[in-house]
């Protein structure tokens, strides 16, 4: 968004807006009914006002807390506002998880196995798949741009097919379908194949756009000095296209990390599989689901930092 230079007071500090938000918050909290919480019960007991009084009182207290919090935060600089709101949302999430009454001991006892077995498998399946997808995407993009009828047809059929099918179905098709043709593939290779074919199709389009973004003059100049197609691609076009395509490739990797959970259906012991399996004996799968959700989340956040570095690196080189 374009940075505006007109400075005005934050909206929430205007009395009318604050009053409107307060009314809306009160209505929402009243509707959700917090009378049956420890605070509501305390209110009902100390004032002797009964249930509906407790409901209104609890709603009003929460609404005042909510608006007061907004107004207070609005006085701080933007950076601190962002951090404060993040922390508050994180605290709300933690409170939501605490409702489940999770067994911390159980999580602790399984955490190392989740990381050593599940996370490792997730990471190596994703890394192998993204590497293969990278190669497929380069070939697919060149084929699509080549002007050769066969190459264009094959490449566009491939991208159309693998972008047009749900990934879960591709996993099943490759795992169950290939053996009917006599190729018995194991679960891990089948999963990697499905992921790399699917993401290769998406990345073909990214790479095609990247190659097309190189000005026509580069091609003409290369031709003028007598280079052949292969040499132009390898030495002139691809090195210039790399800064354009590598950042979106990183994004694809982050997306794939989560989609790799789909290979759990064919029995690969990655994070998702273990999260569904580890707690079943003692009926503690909520513990495992939440733990694995947090692992995925932390992993994605870490990779987003790396991704920002990569993007910054290529931006600086331009």
């Amino acid at each position: 968004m374009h940075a505006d230079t007109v400075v005005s007071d934050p909206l929430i500090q205007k009395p009318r807006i604050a009053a409107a938000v307060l009314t809306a918050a009160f209505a929402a909290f009243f509707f959700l009914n917090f009378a049956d919480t420890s605070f509501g019960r305390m209110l009902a007991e100390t004032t002797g006002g009964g249930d509906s009084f407790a409901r209104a009182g609890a709603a009003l207290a929460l609404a005042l807390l909510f608006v007061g919090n907004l107004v207070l935060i609005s006085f701080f600089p933007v950076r601190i506002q962002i951090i404060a709101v993040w922390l508050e949302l994180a605290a709300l999430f933690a409170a939501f998880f605490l409702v489940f009454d999770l067994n911390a001991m159980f999580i602790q006892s399984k955490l190392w196995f989740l990381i050593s077995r599940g996370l490792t498998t997730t990471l190596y399946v994703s890394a192998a798949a993204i590497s293969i997808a990278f190669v497929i995407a380069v070939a697919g993009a060149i084929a699509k741009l080549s002007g050769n009828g066969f190459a264009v047809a094959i490449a566009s059929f491939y991208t159309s097919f693998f972008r047009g099918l749900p990934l879960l179905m591709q996993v099943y098709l490759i795992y169950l379908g290939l053996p009917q043709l006599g190729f018995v593939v194991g679960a891990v290779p089948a999963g990697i194949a499905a992921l790399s074919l699917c993401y290769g199709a998406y990345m073909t389009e990214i790479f095609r756009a990247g190659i097309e973004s190189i000005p026509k003059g580069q091609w003409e100049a290369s031709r003028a000095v007598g280079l052949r197609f292969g040499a132009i691609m390898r030495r002139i076009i691809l090195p210039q296209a790399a800064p354009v395509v590598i950042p979106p490739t990183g994004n694809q990797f982050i997306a794939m990390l989560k989609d790799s959970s789909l290979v759990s259906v064919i029995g690969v012991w990655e994070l998702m599989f273990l999260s569904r399996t580890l707690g079943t004996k003692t009926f503690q799968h909520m513990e495992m689901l939440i733990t694995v959700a947090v692992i995925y989340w932390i992993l994605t956040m870490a990779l987003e930092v790396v991704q920002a570095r990569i993007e910054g690196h290529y931006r600086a080189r331009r």
Partner: protein
Amino acid sequence: MKKTLAIALSAVLAFCPAPAFAGEALERVMQNGVLKIATDLNWPPQSFLNDDNEMDGFDVAVAREIAKRLGVKAEFVTPSWEVITAGKWAGRWDISVGSMAPTKDRSKVLRFPAVYYYTPAAAAVHKDSKIRKPSELSGKVVGAGTSTVYELYLKRDLEIFGAPEFSYQITPKKIHSLESTTVLLDDLRLGDGVRMDGMVGNFTTIRDAIDSGYPVRLLEPPLFYEPLAAAIDLGDEEFAAKIAAAVKAMREDGTLSRLSKKWYGVDYTAAN
């Protein structure tokens, strides 16, 4: 044009592999010295990951015993239940010791050489429910695992070979079909009638859930007893005979009863 297409297609099909030959599976097992066993890990106490993150349970113990009696090593793979029951394993694994009921449809794609025990199937409701008998679940929303015998029971389409006599007691308004009994139990615990009014599942799994504090109540008596068998791919009679002999020997020398008592507390190896 059509003719060329037909010729091209038959040319392609000519290069496809021929179906399995008799004795192939047995030869593969004996040659590799490994019996590959497929087990879904989501069905405690039959098969699950124990505290040491290793595979454990009644099915796993029976499978190890079968491998021992064949004189080979046991090795486990864990594809999902639908993949196992779909058949056409293509030699990926040799046998499923996964408490599979030998239904009519499954026997079209799989062979069941040996029944190794019988478990009761029971209906259950949330503990706040007013329902006291299974038949009172008629006209309600009732849950069952997808493509399980419990779902077939609710659909009144259950044909299991070797099952003791039973009658259909429930005509649900709607079947709430979910991935496994454990997920169903999570739905049922939310409250009476929140997502469903009751469910049908494995008696012991539900009892274990109740012991773990689930607010669920079993409806006595059990609905039916399902015979549960080991399954192999079609086409190898010698292998089937070997498995049948191994299970028969385990039944006769009391090994099966011992394992059943260890995991269920009850001897389920004979039909009641």
